[in-house]
């Protein structure tokens, strides 16, 4: 959230004085906005999925598909975070800078693995909540 405020300030700065800000900076801001908003979008389940097939599944199969779908996300985010971490550390070591304005790049790159790790945490948390929720539901069924 703090990140969002930060980006918002920068965005307003952009909106306020647009002429002359470098394309490079707007590219880096674009990247930051993308990765800062990913976990938030995930948290409110607004990512796009194709669920037409899953909707035809029986409830049991749908749960299996849901676990599989989450596993796909965790696998993707995990690999991405691992490789992005590597990418960032390497750039830190050689001190990569942007072409024109000479901005150090690794802090921006660090957003990529951090964002993906946060996404994994959200999935795990939602999964645990889902499990306990399902347990609660079934135990209630058992009671009635």
């Amino acid at each position: 959230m703090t990140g969002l405020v930060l980006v918002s300030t920068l965005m307003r700065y952009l909106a306020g004085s647009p002429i002359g800000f470098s394309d490079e900076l707007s590219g880096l801001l674009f990247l930051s906005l993308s990765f800062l908003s990913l976990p938030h979008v995930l948290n409110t389940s607004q990512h796009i999925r194709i669920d037409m097939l899953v909707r035809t599944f029986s409830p049991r199969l749908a749960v299996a598909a849901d676990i599989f779908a989450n596993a796909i996300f965790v696998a993707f985010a995990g690999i991405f975070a691992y490789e992005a971490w590597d990418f960032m550390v390497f750039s830190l070591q050689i001190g990569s800078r942007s072409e024109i304005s000479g901005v150090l790049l690794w802090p921006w790159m660090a957003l990529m693995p951090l964002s993906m790790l946060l996404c994994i945490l959200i999935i795990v948390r939602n999964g645990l909540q889902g499990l306990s929720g399902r347990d609660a539901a079934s135990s209630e069924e058992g009671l009635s």
Partner: protein
Amino acid sequence: MSWAILSAGLLVFLGSGAVLGAALGLTGFILLHFQAGGASALAINSAWNLLTEFTLSAVPLFIFLGDILLASGVSTRVYNGLTPLFRRIPGQLLHTNIAVCTLFGAVSGSSTSTAAAIGSVGYPELSRRGYSPSMVVGTLAAGGTLGLLIPPSLALLIYGATQNVSIGKLFLAGMLPGLLIAMAFFAWIMVRSSLGSSVSPPREDSMDWGAVGRGLLEVWPLPILIFFVLGTIYMGIATPTEAAALGVAASIVLGLTWGDLDLEKLWEAFKHASMMFGAIAMILIGTVILSQAVSLLGLPRAAVDAIAGIGLDRYGILLMIVLVYLLLGCFFDGISLLLMTLPITFPMVTSLGFDPVWFGVIVTLLMEIGMITPPVGLNLFVLCSITRNEVTLPDAARASLPYWMILLAAVGIFTVFPELILWLPNLL
């Protein structure tokens, strides 16, 4: 083997209802790791390059612009003002999507920004007024593709620069086909609105010219915004990204003075826009990783090489090339597909005696088709995100099908009558 992994991965991962971007990206990772000799690190390079490239940085600004107009009530008043004018035409305000996209296409080189810019205002306004959501998305998807054909066009620029064809001629060549296709879109909206299930609110028979006049008086912010977004680009004052930022500033001023925007609503609009954009970013990441994998494996080249060996006549080869572009269009869109295939298709087609300028327009049309071909169609993804998945990807694809067929028919017609493309540039 690569083709098998590609199809199976997409089928299983997408079918499971996983987050679209993750499903595309994981397929890409698998291809990179197992088929390209452990090159999965490359995925990060391509994601970084795509998201730091400034061509796309106008997209979130345009979405933010749309949300400000919406939150301040400015867009509602503008659409209210336009309604009387379109009252008697079948399809009514649906036509505004195509018209505004055509106008916007004349300054924007990219079809995704066109769809995002027009969609973030047009969709909420029209669906609220009782237009069928999927019909609205269809017109936006179709209208967005016009951005690629009507000059300036990123696709034609890159075609011209890589294949040594006059960019000025290409721009002239794109104009007439772009307008003809816009006309065909208008015609289809009228036909579809007059037949079959209802897609728009009921129409009135009489024209109330007083209401038209009063309505048009409410439209005055439109030219101001158009000046800030389009005029500044034409006059060379601003790049597209800067123009989008200027448009944001202008819309905030308009919203605070003429509309009912306040800081709280502005903050809400910002939050809404960044969520929407986050959903799009996830898809961009997945798409670029998959594209990187497929291009590193040289799959497009393999496909085109395969048809060169069949031994067909001139039109047979052209037909096969079109088919290959349609097939590749399922997995790619836009510029990446262009760069991957042109080195092979351009010499093939021109050596058969086809005109290089003509082929530039044809190949741009095929790019446009790819943009709205599922499962990997960027314009469809962007629009689904804008509707917050109220219109799902299959619905959006189905709604775009008629426009997809119009574009394909255009390829056929322009092949039979190449003068439609070449007449204007040859006047030069």
